């Protein structure tokens, strides 16, 4: 383990971790801090890597925990479903492009309004392309639970989209 390089082993995980931290903290600067702490922690524990089955899973779990802790510590919480629904634009803009842009940002707001676990599972599946089994291992829950949470998330999104 003496010849491992940070650049080739840990650094390639940074963008993936950043997207996860960003979906939890909803703040770019805070997400960067979380990723930095996570990468340094993973690197400092390199002597124990041989005991870790999956380095990426370890990094993702560490990153998620740190991001959740940060959100709790700062006393912030993500917007509730009601807040998201109330923030929908009530008037219809005549310009199609502006409408599309508004709708696009609304979809993002809808996704961000999901509970943290649903949001994280949706990110890992739809954006990072993980299998249900991989997600279950990453989050320490069963595969069935992953499907249940994802189903809830997708159903909500579908309902919101069709009601727009």
């Amino acid at each position, binding site marked *: 383990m003496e010849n491992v390089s940070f650049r080739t082993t840990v*650094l390639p995980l940074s963008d993936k971790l950043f997207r996860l931290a960003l979906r939890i903290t909803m703040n770019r600067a805070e997400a960067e801090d979380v*990723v930095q702490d996570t990468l*340094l922690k993973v690197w400092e524990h390199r002597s124990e890597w041989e005991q870790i089955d999956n380095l990426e899973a370890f990094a993702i779990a560490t990153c998620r925990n740190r991001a959740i802790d940060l959100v709790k510590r700062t006393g912030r919480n993500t917007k509730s479903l009601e807040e998201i629904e109330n923030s929908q634009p009530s008037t219809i803009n005549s310009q199609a492009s502006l409408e599309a842009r508004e*709708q*696009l940002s609304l*979809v993002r707001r809808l996704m961000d309004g999901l509970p943290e676990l649903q949001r994280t599972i949706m*990110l890992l599946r739809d*954006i990072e392309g993980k299998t249900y089994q991989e997600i279950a291992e990453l989050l320490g829950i069963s595969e069935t639970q992953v499907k249940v949470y994802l189903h809830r998330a*997708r159903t909500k999104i579908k309902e919101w989209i069709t009601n727009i």
Partner: protein
Amino acid sequence: MDYKYIEQLLERYWECQTTLEEEAILRNFFRQEDVPASFLPYRQLFIEEDEIAREHLSKDFTDRMLRLVGEEAPIQVCKARRLTVVRRLRPFYRAAGLIAILLTIGNAAHQSFTHEDAEATMPIAENATADSLQQITIGQPEQQSASLTAQPLDTLDAFAR
């Protein structure tokens, strides 16, 4: 395009019954600009997910991390190469060489076109040369004649003229 298939895939997507490959098919379908109106509301979701997938950290972050762990980013140094005069003039030599080759080829082509004329006049020239040499040989002393025959052909031609 079979929209029925997309419809079925989409239904299975909401129910979490699609494989990653099937979800990739859906994603590719919704990346198109001309999606049928019935699918348009769902397009925003897939486009938005593509946007999220493109989010990344800046290069400053990477450099900062490398500094923190003591693996500095390699400094890119541009080494100035010293060029000698010969090396600097190499393109001109090459151009000159190319021109010389072209001229040689052109000359050879020109000569091949005029070869028939040369063939026609060759026997006359040969006869004239032989006559001239014979006259010279008869008119000169033996020693001089021997020295003349030892001369290169060009010299003999010149002498004959």
